[in-house]
């Protein structure tokens, strides 16, 4: 029996049922510290639901999700975030009416209470951190764009990743981070993900197999709410079951 505290995230027997339909069914998943894990699978396999369960957007029917040994299934969303889990949504979810700078600033992990917000000050450390993250996600030149909604689709994806980096999470979950990106942007994103996974664990959902090959340490294949298999990319790609349900199509 492995010791759960070795893993940053350990999911055991996780099940969620929507009116009898089990979107996630007895899933077990362990993610190491500093690991970059990619989850693949056909549409409706339960990938996004799994991320929803981890970050608290959907409540589990049964099973457990432990993050650094702490049970997450009963926590409120903001408490999960505060304990160090960041989540990027499938469609870029940024504040379109705020400037790029403000988008990043909002995610700075200070002044998260009502009173904290009223007394929050834009101090040098905030400004420095925003600049640092903007540099990382290749948005340095757009930092003073007054409306983040004017960014290109790919840049919005980066901005949301940047907003998560502001929080400095220990576990970062990205739902289709390169959807709608050009080939060049995909390459840049792969470099970015490899860089940011050096000191944190990252879970990525992705369909683009070329992209997955470039970033994945380990791949988990989900099918009909269950883990079909798990392993290195080349092993997964040559597995007949995976080819049958997913890659073959």
């Amino acid at each position: 029996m492995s010791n759960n505290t070795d893993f940053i995230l350990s999911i055991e027997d996780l099940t969620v049922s929507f009116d009898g339909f089990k979107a996630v069914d007895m899933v077990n998943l362990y993610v190491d510290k500093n690991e970059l894990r990619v989850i693949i699978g056909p549409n409706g396999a339960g990938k996004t639901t799994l991320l929803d369960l981890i970050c608290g957007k959907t409540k589990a029917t049964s099973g457990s999700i432990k993050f650094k040994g702490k049970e997450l299934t009963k926590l409120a969303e903001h408490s999960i975030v505060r304990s160090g889990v960041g989540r990027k949504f499938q469609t870029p979810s940024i504040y379109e009416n705020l400037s790029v700078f403000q988008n990043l600033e909002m995610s700075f992990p200070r002044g998260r209470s009502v009173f904290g917000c009223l007394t929050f000050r834009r101090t040098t450390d905030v400004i420095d951190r925003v600049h640092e993250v903007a540099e990382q996600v290749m948005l340095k030149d757009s930092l003073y764009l007054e409306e983040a909604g004017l960014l290109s689709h790919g840049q919005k994806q980066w901005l949301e990743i940047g907003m998560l980096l502001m929080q400095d999470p220990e576990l970062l979950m990205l739902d289709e981070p390169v959807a709608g990106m050009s080939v060049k942007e995909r390459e840049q994103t792969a470099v970015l993900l490899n860089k940011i996974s050096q000191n944190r664990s990252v879970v990525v959902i992705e369909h683009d197999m070329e992209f997955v090959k470039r970033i994945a340490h380990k791949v988990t294949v989900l099918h009909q709410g269950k883990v079909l298999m798990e392993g290195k990319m080349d092993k997964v790609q040559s597995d007949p079951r995976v080819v049958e349900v997913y890659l073959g199509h």
Partner: protein
Amino acid sequence: MMKAMYQNMLGGRSGMIGLLILAAIIFLVLPLGLDLFRLNLVGKYLTYAFVAVSLVLLWGYGGILSLGQGIFFGLGGYCMAMFLKLEASDPESTKIQTTPGIPDFMDWNQLTALPWFWEPFHSLTFTLIAILAVPTLFAFIIGYAMFKRRVGGVYFAIITQVIALILTILIVGQQGYTGGVNGITDLKTLMGWDIRTDSAKYILYFINGALLIAVILVSRVILGSKFGMLMLAMRDKEERVRFSGYDVADFKIFVFCLAAMISAIGGAMFTLQVGFMSPTFVGIVPSIEMVIFAAVGGRMSLIGAVYGALLVNYGKTVFSESYPELWLFLMGGLFIAVVMFFPNGLAGIYDKYEKKLFTRKPRKGSASAMSSRTLSDPQPGPVRDAASPPAKGMGISNQPVN
């Protein structure tokens, strides 16, 4: 920190000009230009402006439409009225009653002793605290029950409306305790100071105006802080805010309580200036009227909301003198027109023309090209001067709050 706070209060150059113009109108133009009767009416309209300002915070910035602000306006007004009524009901002037020393309507309803919850309203200090605390606490209970369960949008609006209706029915039904449908009337003095005299009316008008300006200044500080930015973010992408580690419900509860407190100040000033309080200012119709004031003035503009309250009420007074039955239709039509054609109300129209007048002067040579662009593209150019990064401090909002 203090310096940044002052900057937020004044709201930059245009914000300061807007505030000065409003102050000049309230404190100079109207008192000098109107007779006392009309000025007293304006004073009454300005008490509604408190509610309109509260709706800018709640609805404009917070995205929470409350169709029950009359609840808090009424609660504030009733707290004030209870104190004044008790003062007006001294044993000497009520000696013809069966039970002297209690408000007249209680005597008419066969009450023989002052109800327990009226007792503390003998104290002015208690009353002043209650004016602020009772509506805020009530808003907290409603807000906590709703927002923690993530009730929002239309459902929240309907629930606030229902609460306004319930409160009206309660007040009307409990005639012996509340004065019923007539409300609490015949208010005379405040600590011996006759509020019905001409000088008192002037003084109350100016206190009212000063309080309104103070409320606008405080609101600006709040909207200019990270809190204001967060409200905009919340309106846009609530999920994202939640998954950035904020407890969204807390922020909604706070702004709902704040809006309730501001409305209550207006209600208390209403009682003082008009001399009575009744359930007609609590229910559904006044609550919706107050939303219309904010919509007409501009739901994103604190100052615009004040003008909205003044103009719509002026229209109401003028029209209901000649065509009383048409007024409600007209107001409904006005609301629809504003929402459809001027979603940012008068303030939105003003902003558009101000920009055209002052900041969009085309350069020589490219005049025709520039002006055509001005017409087709009302939004200002997106790219900000990269040489002017946001400054440090509390003023973290780019746009000055009007």
